[in-house]
């Protein structure tokens, strides 16, 4: 192939350019390296407004999910401002786009803290983005409120987790399946940290409680060929599928599942990453009758939720669904407000000290902050997808469950982490 030959000069130019850019990025990295003086960055509370950071992916592959969370955060900020703000100061939201890219998240987090001097930041969706920004918030001693259910086994003094940890979503889901007599499980998940950690927990649970994991398969993130996995599920003799697939893969999986002749009756699928927004995107006809595990559904009864759904749809369009991560994000802003008002200050140390026992009448029902783990007491809810694409609750835990990110309260989980 004559076209593939490089001239020596071109190659040299390319190499030196690459060297120069490497040197540049090395300089760039220096500014971000933490020294003790960084901790001197103080949030700016001198004016009549204070800045809060909203850190979500507004572009790239995660935008489909994270834009809705960003909208919910903005809604909460707007409502709080309309009611007079926090400690008499209006909130000025500063949005930064994490662009579905973890290093970008770390960069933008730093910009929010150092340049905008925000008093708190709300956002992140994927565990990878959270793990990328964690050291940044810890270095600058600034607060992040993280709104999405996750795999647990994590604690940070500067992160408040307002989504479910495993004992508020996965463990109750397993309890539910066991109660239904569905004891033989097939685990299907995407190949990354959340499904693998979740499945480790599921296997420990199954072993202790007399359930059986009859198969376990992981598909690369974004994979769209599920015919073999579905064949394996069908041949396995399982009672139910525990699905931790993420994103587009769900579409291919459920289409394949339906055309193989399996149904929600013959072998129900319980999913932990499919909320109202995803149901639309996968196709209601493929999901009708299948199960999900969350802490909130658009259909959750109560005045707080009626108000939240109406406010969201008034702001962003009629018929726009609300979902669990959106609700947890919306609630996180209110929880922070309550903490600040209890502390009487925006100071991070004082806000943290005031956090324990803060309650809020959230759309999902009452939530309470657990100051020790900086997680939130939440009610677990199992739901069924209806013909209209909304999810109706079929079971709930009755009362909010104490967060236990390291599953210390469960004997069978002692070998994990």
């Amino acid at each position, binding site marked *: *192939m*004559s*076209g*593939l030959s490089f001239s020596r000069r071109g190659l040299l130019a390319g190499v030196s350019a690459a060297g120069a850019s490497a040197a540049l990025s090395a300089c760039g990295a220096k500014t971000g390296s933490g020294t003790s003086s960084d901790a001197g960055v103080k949030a700016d509370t001198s004016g009549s407004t204070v800045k809060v950071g909203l850190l979500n992916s507004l572009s790239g*592959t995660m*935008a*489909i999910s994270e*834009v809705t969370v960003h909208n919910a955060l903005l809604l909460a900020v707007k409502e709080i401002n309309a009611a007079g703000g926090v400690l008499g100061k209006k909130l000025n939201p500063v949005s930064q786009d994490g662009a579905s890219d973890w290093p970008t998240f770390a960069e933008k987090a730093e910009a929010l803290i150092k340049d905008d001097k925000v008093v708190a930041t709300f956002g992140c969706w994927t565990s990878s983005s959270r793990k990328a920004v964690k050291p940044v918030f810890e270095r600058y001693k600034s607060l992040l409120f993280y709104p999405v259910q996750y795999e647990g086994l994590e604690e940070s003094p500067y992160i408040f987790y307002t989504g479910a940890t495993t004992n508020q979503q996965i463990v109750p889901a397993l309890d539910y399946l066991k109660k239904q007599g569905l004891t033989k499980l097939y685990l299907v998940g995407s*190949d990354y940290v959340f499904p693998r950690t979740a499945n480790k927990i599921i296997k420990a649970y199954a072993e202790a409680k007399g359930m059986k994991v009859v198969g376990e*398969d*992981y*598909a*690369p993130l*974004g*994979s*769209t*060929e599920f*015919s*073999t*996995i579905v*064949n*394996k599920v069908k*041949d396995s003799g399982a009672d139910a599928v525990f699905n931790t697939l993420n994103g*587009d893969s769900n*579409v*291919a999986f459920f*289409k*394949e599942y*339906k*055309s*193989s*002749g399996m149904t929600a009756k013959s072998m129900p699928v319980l999913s932990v990453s499919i909320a109202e*927004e995803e149901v*639309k*995107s*996968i*196709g209601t*006809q493929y999901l009708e009758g299948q199960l999900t595990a969350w802490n909130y559904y658009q259909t959750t009864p109560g005045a707080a939720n009626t108000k939240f759904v109406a406010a969201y749809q008034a702001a962003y369009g009629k018929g726009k669904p609300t979902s669990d991560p959106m609700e947890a994000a919306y609630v996180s802003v209110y929880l922070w407000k309550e903490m600040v008002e209890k502390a009487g200050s925006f100071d991070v140390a004082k806000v943290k000290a005031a956090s324990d026992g803060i309650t809020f009448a959230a759309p999902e029902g009452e939530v309470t902050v657990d100051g020790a783990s900086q997680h939130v007491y939440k009610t677990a809810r199992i739901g069924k997808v209806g013909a209209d694409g909304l999810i109706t609750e079929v079971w709930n835990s009755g009362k909010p469950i104490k967060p236990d990110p390291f599953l210390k309260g469960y004997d069978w989980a002692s070998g994990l982490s």
Partner: protein
Amino acid sequence: MTVILNQSFTGISIGAVLLLIALGLTLTFGQMGVINMAHGEFIMAGAYTTYVLQKSISSAGISLLVALPVAFVVAGLMGALLEWLLIRRLYTRPLDTLLVTWGVSLMLQQLARDVFGAPNVQTHAPDLLTDNVSVGGGITLANSRLFILGLALLCVLALTLILRTTPLGRRIRAVVQNRDLAEVSGIATGQVDRMTFFIGSGLAGVAGVALTLVGPIGPTMGTNYIVDAFLVVVVGGIGQLKGSVITAFALGVLQSVLEYSTTVSVAKVIVLVAIVAFLQWRPQGLYTLRTRSLA
């Protein structure tokens, strides 16, 4: 036994999908040597065409059948336009083509996002195609997969006929074998290139229609399939249809059998290692074209 038969059918159906997405590339990459990274976006264009048509034609079955020729033309015209705008200026620079078409692919993805939104869209498959048939012995065949298999074979047949029997096909083969000689014999090679690109990209559009039955329809759907499509063409051999046909089915069956006994990732690794080993042994691929050019 049931498992083996079931997996063989699964493998053949995976092969049919591979064949459909690779068929257009056998022309544009295999015959013309253009590395078109935007091939996946032509697949996407075909899928969105199905979606748009379904909005105006209520019957799922009819809209799917109408979508096949319309998607062929839509994606084909996109391909021809891309060829005329950019690729014809870069025929001697394959690496530049790769970069340019990659840029085009990103632009097309963003365009789809702007027009149709970032979330996936849905088409309704006709009821007949979401069903399956039992052939006894515990073996079920999914109708959607049978449809794709039929469609793939039909496309191969049509393409073979075009290349073998029509004046256009003769001209395409002449240009592939020896561009300069074709040029001096009075063949307008530029026009032939554009037609080849039209047909190749159109076939990607047809693949897109078929994929609405099995996978997601979204702005980035093309990227899911592009690597596999190139693999099939490279292993099959440059410029030979039968190479791609055999390779697609062989890879499909290999992948599904391995996947059943191991895991998805392990199966993929073994398939890739097997491909690398095979290409060590036959760098030119399964079949190669005897050309009359000196290069």
